[in-house]
């Protein structure tokens, strides 16, 4: 309901906070200073929304781990429904396999933000879940990254 629309940003507000999604190709860097752009900027046909958090946001997104075509679960929760840890919220079809998208921890369902049949890429936000009652925000951990050896 987002990437396929002409909307450039989507803001979800509730009593406990807000979360905003913006289309990535339009320049939503975390530091949106006047960064020089090459002259080739163009509107991409495939554009994935990039998650943009705001101070004090209580939401987490469930993101695509693989590239493929998104299919929601038959029984998609309604906003406000409690979703359990490991509950399957949908699938990503890739290489003729259906890969389940699971909710990482118990919380309240807020929104599904991609359409049935939409192509999604790595890291693309699929669902918004309110985890504020179960854990503190910002628990996402980056894996340590090692350098690649030179390749030529």
């Amino acid at each position, binding site marked *: 309901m987002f990437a396929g629309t002409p909307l450039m940003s989507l803001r979800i507000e509730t009593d406990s906070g807000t979360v905003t999604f913006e289309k*990535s190709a339009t320049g939503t*860097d975390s530091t949106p200073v006047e*960064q*020089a*752009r*090459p002259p*080739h*900027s*163009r509107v*991409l*046909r*495939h554009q*994935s929304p*990039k998650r943009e958090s705001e101070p004090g946001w209580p939401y987490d997104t469930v993101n695509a781990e*693989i*590239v*493929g*075509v998104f299919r929601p679960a038959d029984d998609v929760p309604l906003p406000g429904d409690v979703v359990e840890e490991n509950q399957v919220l949908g699938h990503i079809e*890739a*290489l003729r396999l259906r890969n389940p998208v699971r909710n990482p921890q118990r919380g309240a369902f807020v929104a599904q933000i991609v359409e049935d049949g939409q*192509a999604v*890429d*790595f*890291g*693309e936000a699929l669902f918004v879940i309110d985890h504020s009652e179960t854990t503190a925000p910002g628990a996402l951990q980056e*894996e340590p*990254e*090692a*350098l*690649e050896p*030179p*390749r*030529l």
Partner: protein
Amino acid sequence: MFEKILIANRGEIAVRVIRASRELGVKTVAVFSEADRNALHVRMADESYCIGPALASRSYLNVPNLISAAEVAGCDAVHPGYGFLSENAAFAEICASHGLKFIGPPVKAIALMGDKASAKMRMQEAGVPVIPGSGIVESPDRVKSFCREVGYPVLIKASAGGGGKGMRVVGREADLAKGIAAASAEAEASFSNGQVYVEKLLNHPRHIEVQVLGDEFGHIIHLGERDCSVQKPGHQKLLEEAPAPNLDPEVRHRLCASAVKAARAVDYSNAGTLEFLLGGDNQFYFMEMNTRIQVEHPITEVVYGVDLVAWQIRIAAGERLTIRQEEVQARGHAIECRINAENAEKSFQPASGKLGTVLLPGGPGIRLDTHIYSGAEVPPYYDSLLAKIIAHSPNRDDAIRRMVRALAETEIHGVATTLPIHQKALETPSFLEGRTYVTWLREEVLHPPVAATAGAHGA
């Protein structure tokens, strides 16, 4: 012709493939890691897909995500660029099994040439000269005749070797037994395998390579040679030129003929490069074949007026190569300088970070292949190549002057680059005379300042 190509790469080569595709009227799909979200190839392509986190092993080498992106986007072909999956026979096979044409040579040729021992054997069978070797040494006395035949000095190498361990140079027969014993003991200690063999040692050889191009109907031509002798310690090319200076026309003819013979021997098609070492005695020896487009392909393109990347795509799409060998004619001289984010003063340690102002050269005879721009990020995860400056002139002296001018115009702020070392190399008298060899940069340009730290580099 293809409808849409997925480019399984990043950086300047992804940009290069997009340019060739656009000129052929083919749509392009870029893939990128989370570290490359703002990369130029992503902006230039018609579509783009994020395929994983920054680490190459989880993004640019992530075969399932690459294939899935190609399927989702409706691609009919994949261009692998260089590095990453470009010489991975299994990837080429997977592409084929998903109905994607791999823009490159046949899987069999990639697999055969990817195995150094089998490649050497096949080349020997085809009559292409390879560096003479003794086979495993059983006793020093038995290799004496081999050493006399190829002439001293010879190099003793550990069969299980690598990293210089178990290697000894022997200058005369009297030292042979001692050298073999020492190398064998070192090999035993390092690899629990004391087997050694003896190879002819080339004294200050040059690295000369030949570009070949073939279609899928058996028509194979060469597009002359490139001299890639200016290398960083560790055999990484830094500056290349075409044609090779001071090359005897008769040797050139034999080299190019050998390259075509080698390509035919493995039923090669698409673009490929045969790398040779050329000794001072004008004898050359096959080293390896690169079954992909090379970084330094632009110097061949400007000298021969041929778009190699466009031909790669056209040949993969089933077109016939319409260039006949007799039409292949070198025009002028070209030099390429690889501008890397590296500090030559510190053993070419890679640099990364956000670029400041970037001013790139232009004007007559200058070609620039790059993906950088002012404010671009240089992530630490990938190859450090920033830009390739190519100078083309009617003769070598003019090409050198043109390159010196272009380097002086270039400004890249924010990271250390190889600009200064190129400037130093281009004014070194032995370079001006066209007398370089594979260890030339270390011996005549870096030395003495870097010699003291050279030991720390090899690890």
